[in-house]
């Protein structure tokens, strides 16, 4: 199953971990000094927050797919006039192995 991915930039990671853990009713699945990540099933989302990436806000959206074939299929479709995403940068990534393709706004 595909999963929405969203990465946001925050100024205070500890505060962000507290907020999103409450919102998702779930602790981060992994975290470091400057990032935390939640994998939530309901609602289905891979949500990341990090510091040190400039102004706070949404950094990029993503579509996490299960296989390299799915990624390649989307990559083939998003060609030509569809190459750039409207309004927001999107990336498509495969869960394992870590391969990603970016579609900049």
């Amino acid at each position, binding site marked *: *199953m*595909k*999963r*929405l991915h*969203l990465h*946001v*930039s*925050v*100024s*205070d990671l*500890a*505060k*962000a*971990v*507290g*907020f*999103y*853990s*409450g*919102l*998702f*009713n*779930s*602790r*981060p*699945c*992994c*975290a*470091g000094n400057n990032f*935390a990540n*939640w*994998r*939530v*099933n*309901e*609602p*289905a*989302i891979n949500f990341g*927050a990090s510091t040190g990436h400039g102004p*706070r*806000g*949404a950094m990029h*959206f993503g*579509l*996490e797919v299960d296989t390299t074939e799915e990624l390649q299929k*989307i990559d083939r*479709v*998003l060609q030509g*006039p*569809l190459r750039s*995403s*409207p*309004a*927001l940068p*999107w990336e*498509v990534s495969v869960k394992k192995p870590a391969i990603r393709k970016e*579609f900049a*706004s």
Partner: protein
Amino acid sequence: MKRMHVHVSVKDIGNAVGFYSALFATKPSVVKDDYAKWMLDDPRMNFAISTRGREPGLDHLDIQVESQTELHEVYARLKSAGGTVIEQGATACCYAKSEKSWIDDPAGISWETFHTTGENISYGDGSGENEARVAHTKACCVPSAAKPAVETAPSCSTACATA
């Protein structure tokens, strides 16, 4: 089942419908002159675009629920998350009639939680709420009584158990 909702402000509905229809490999379930929506099962998501925002970009995020029970459960989550929760109540926006509440996250992004009870013939005026609380002023739906988020007391300091 709860579902992520993303609302993105775009300049050109036609161009954006083309991109997102390709990305999701699905045509939108609703298309208007100023709005389009995809109700997806894989990924499970309600993705909407509109030209109602002042500038292109993320308008707001949301946890959409399917019942009053789930709505009150997510309301409790908002309170647990910390910050100022704005209970909008019944409203008409985005061609739908809904009950919703709002909160700002630490990235400055507006999150709503809502339960839709029916369609609305027009885009709706958000019951009078207009003020932005994120990157730009929205044309609809966001309550104006925004205040800075209240500090929470986070306790998760290290990498936690895997989900």
